């Protein structure tokens, strides 16, 4: 393989004047994490609402939830980001569109919201199946105790359902982290984009991508380990997850 390896490249100064190539990659990692966490908050909030909607007795509510999930699930994330970034400001009234476009950090906000909504459909599906997996008796008992629907969800169903879906939600969160890289296409300079930029500036393709790979792996490991502790912490002894 006629490729000139140069692992010391990470300690060489990058042309952006803020430090070495390693600093460049780490700043990308930071942005990846920030974007993922903000998107995840949106995904959790919207996903929970829609997930609950889908399990409500009301036909209309469950239909709205269904349409929401189908809408966000049946389009590639990349296309959704393009819709938010390129199309939305153009179809809005001029002044609004201009305001949207000239926001500093527009790629960050677009990526956060676009990714958050995309992931929310998947969170909703997980939560729905979590609620669906609870024994019917729980809901019936809650009703028998005189709890309202809201109270049933708040005190009986959701606390159980969230514990059940914690492992799948962990992997959805990791998907969120990975999916931030799609925002490279709307100019978000996250980890993959920084690796690409490093490749362009330094011509060291494989070193740059190796470093990005290692950083993504680290994030995965840290999140997986942390979530295992969380799972253990919230487990109810003697019930499903708390064996």
């Amino acid at each position, binding site marked *: 393989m006629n490729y000139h390896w140069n692992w010391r490249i990470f300690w060489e100064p990058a042309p952006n004047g803020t430090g070495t190539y390693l600093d460049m990659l780490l700043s990308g990692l930071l942005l990846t994490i920030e974007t993922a966490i903000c998107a995840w908050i949106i995904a959790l909030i919207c996903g929970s609402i829609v997930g609950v909607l889908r399990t409500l007795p009301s036909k209309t509510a469950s239909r709205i939830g269904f349409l929401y999930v189908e809408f966000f699930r*049946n389009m590639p994330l990349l*296309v959704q980001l393009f*819709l938010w970034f390129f199309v939305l400001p153009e179809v809005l009234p001029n002044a609004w569109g201009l305001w949207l476009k000239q926001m500093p950090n527009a790629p960050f906000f677009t990526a956060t919201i676009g990714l958050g909504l995309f992931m929310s459909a998947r969170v909703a599906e997980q939560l729905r199946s979590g609620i669906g997996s609870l024994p019917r008796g729980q809901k019936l008992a809650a009703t028998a105790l005189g709890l309202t629907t809201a109270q049933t969800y708040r005190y009986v169903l959701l606390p159980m359902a969230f514990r059940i879906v914690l492992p799948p939600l962990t992997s959805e969160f990791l998907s969120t982290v990975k999916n931030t890289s799609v925002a490279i296409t709307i100019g978000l300079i996250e980890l993959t984009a920084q690796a690409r930029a490093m490749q362009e500036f330094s011509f060291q393709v494989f070193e740059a991508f190796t470093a990005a790979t290692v950083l993504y792996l680290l994030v995965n490991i840290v999140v997986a380990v942390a979530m295992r502790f969380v799972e253990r912490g919230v487990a109810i002894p003697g019930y499903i997850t708390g064996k």
Partner: protein
Amino acid sequence: MFANFDFDVIRRSLSYLFLDGMTFTLTLTGLATVGALVFGTLLALMRLSGSKPLVWFAGIYVDLMRSLPLVLVIFWFYFLVPYIGQWLTGSSRPMRVGAFTSSLVTFIIFEAAYFSEIMRAGIQSISKGQPAAAQALGLTYSQTMRYVVLPQAFRNMLPVLLTQTIVLFQDTSLVYVLSIPDFLGAASKVAQRDGRLVEMYLFAAVVYFAISCIASFGVRRLQARIAFVH
């Protein structure tokens, strides 16, 4: 809002969008699904084989691929595949690999990790009595897998496999980052050339949405039928 909407730009580029772009996307989806299913099944068998090195290899492979963003993997392989080809064929220079082949290899290698997890669940869903009975009948391991376990695992997992295929179909749009003219790539080339982003991206969104919707509707029908038969 649609006052200066130019439908004509879509009509003019229809043949390019579908004959070139969509053909690329669908061929890539189809071949990658088959490849990833085969490779993924192999990985699943390795993982369940009980042989330590194989279990290790398959486990690390699947975990690694599932930890990485597809965009990064696409960059990796577009630059790496020719060197792998050189290494495999023992040639003196990197193998020339075109955009399509390179994307195909990338998607097979990446999606195999996901397909392998599905097939593993499928194989584990078969009751232990079946392979035992097959062995009692004198079938070898490979015969047991081929004639007894895998067909059933495949059938049980068909809806999930098809759903993953829809995800794969959507994921192929990411080759956009390499300027390869898949459906979205083609749409964006027209969009940028003619300055018609709104029309082209909306149109692309509608097409992806329609195809995925119809496909997932089909999967749901299939699921209902399988559930009914059982």
